[in-house]
């Protein structure tokens, strides 16, 4: 299983690298940061049907950090929601595969984002609807750490706890680097887990690149309490390519030329 997920994550990273290189686009560091989380979600956890993307009982997934959209497109294409060939159009003229994740014309994308601090509220709405309809599906949302600076999230955090939305899982990509400096230097989030706990959430911390731990935490649906769940995934921005790791430059820089080639070879080859 771990091998399959590693292979899936590698495929996502390779696609994303190619897409951001071809499109001359940013955010490869942010995508690499969540590639393993996406692999575990789409490869193991999410109940979705690529041949029936609107299946009513599906688990809902929202990427609230929309700038890592290329990662989701890649994950969806690899999972069979649409041909991987389409990924080439990302960021190109007349393409619907925008830099920030968009749902229009792209099977499998639940919700469009790009402005931070929107996804969690919408996820709350979907979770509340699921409960009103007595559905057993879950709602997952991936947020960035810097995104938690947005006050709107904390409105949603309070709402979810107050209404005991235990079918909601917020995964925080805690790579500790936001768009200029570290989260500590920018607007300190710590004590981060305690913040969520004090707001009434059940919090688990996990290595965001460890497939087994991620799977265990995310697959677990036997909540003993009625709290919404926050999974703080400790991650490395740029994970998988040595010179991109923990380097804020790769929030912006598009991999080109020699850098692109080196990155590609560092990632390795997907096993068929």
């Amino acid at each position: 299983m771990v091998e399959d997920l590693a292979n899936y994550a590698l495929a996502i990273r390779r696609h994303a690298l190619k897409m951001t290189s071809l499109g001359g686009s940013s955010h490869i560091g942010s995508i690499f940061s969540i590639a393993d989380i996406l692999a575990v979600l789409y490869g193991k956890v999410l109940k979705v049907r690529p041949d029936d993307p609107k299946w009513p009982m599906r688990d809902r997934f929202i990427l609230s950090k929309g700038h890592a959209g290329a990662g989701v497109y890649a994950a969806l294409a690899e999972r069979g929601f649409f041909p991987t060939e389409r990924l080439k159009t990302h960021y190109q003229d007349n393409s619907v595969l925008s830099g920030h994740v968009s749902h229009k014309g792209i099977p499998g994308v639940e919700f469009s984002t790009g402005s931070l601090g929107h996804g969690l509220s919408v996820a709350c709405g979907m979770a509340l609807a699921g409960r009103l309809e007595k559905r057993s599906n879950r709602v997952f949302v991936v947020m960035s750490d810097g995104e938690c600076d947005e006050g709107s999230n904390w409105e949603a955090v309070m709402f979810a706890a107050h209404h005991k939305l235990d079918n909601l899982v917020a995964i925080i990509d805690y790579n500790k680097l936001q768009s200029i400096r570290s989260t500590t230097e920018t607007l300190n989030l710590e004590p981060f887990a305690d913040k969520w706990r004090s707001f009434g959430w059940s919090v688990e911390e996990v290595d965001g690149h460890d497939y087994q731990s991620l799977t265990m935490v995310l697959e677990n649906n036997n909540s003993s309490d009625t709290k919404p769940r926050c999974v703080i995934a400790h991650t490395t921005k740029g994970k998988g390519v040595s010179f991109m790791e923990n380097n804020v430059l790769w929030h912006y820089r598009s991999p080109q030329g020699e850098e692109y080639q080196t990155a590609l070879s560092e990632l390795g080859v997907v096993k068929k």
Partner: protein
Amino acid sequence: MRDAFLKTITTLAEQDPNVILLTADLGFGVFEEFEQKFPGQYFNVGVAEQNMTGLATGLALEGKKLITYSIGNFPTLRCLEQIRNDACYHEANITIVASGGGFSYGALGMSHHATEDLSILRSLPGITVVAPGTAWEAAQATWQLVQENKVGYLRIDKTSADDKKGSLGGEFKLGRARRIIEGSDCTIICTGGILAEAVKAAELAKEKGVSCRVVSHHTVKPADVDEILDAAKNTGGIVTVEEHNVIGGIGSVVAEVCLDNGILPGKFKRLGLEDTYSSVVGSQKFLRSYYGMDAESILDAVCSS
């Protein structure tokens, strides 16, 4: 108007369990009965308009019919990006309701004056923008907006023109203006409860021998092109009236429609707030007079050449 709105959503909620009302902690003494009757269809989300709008979108995308409610600028400008990116872009079925249009809360100060909402909201693709002129129109608009299966904005004024069961201007249809009074010398086109002042102005004009048509252009977007062009072609001119900045509101709508169609009205005057915030407070009646949009001011505009 608010009572008409409340009565309508009560009927809607009774008929359709998918109708859900969210309020951002406003509506004391208003929603208690609704909450009691429809416990799974009412949520007070707290003073959190951004979350209310995102939440509404999530629910709407799951097949619910949402109404978000607050007062003044809170359900609109406070969460404008949620309305744009979440609600409108995803074509969610949400009716955003602001109680207290224009100077409804005149004495509370500029934070509570909703005087740019129509302009700002109508610039969002995919939204219907309505400011009813009468309580009956408010009830009709509520019904139609909730059934419309898209994003709508309903601006509810504290005062309104008198109109028993639509006796004045015929049927109500979103996007179709209602001709309240027939006339030929000039047309007063207005939006919102300030229709009452327009009706009064037309009556005063009549005493002076000036025949005034009065149009309740309740749906700011989409505009009723036919009615506006008819006024431009077949009456002496147009005066627009709104409790709103003159920039971007109904006056702008009328000007856009006329010029887009190459029709110039005999005369044209926009009454409203002249691109300013009011730091002066007072009753709605006082502020209408202070800012030159009461019946006397409208009469002056109608009678001046």
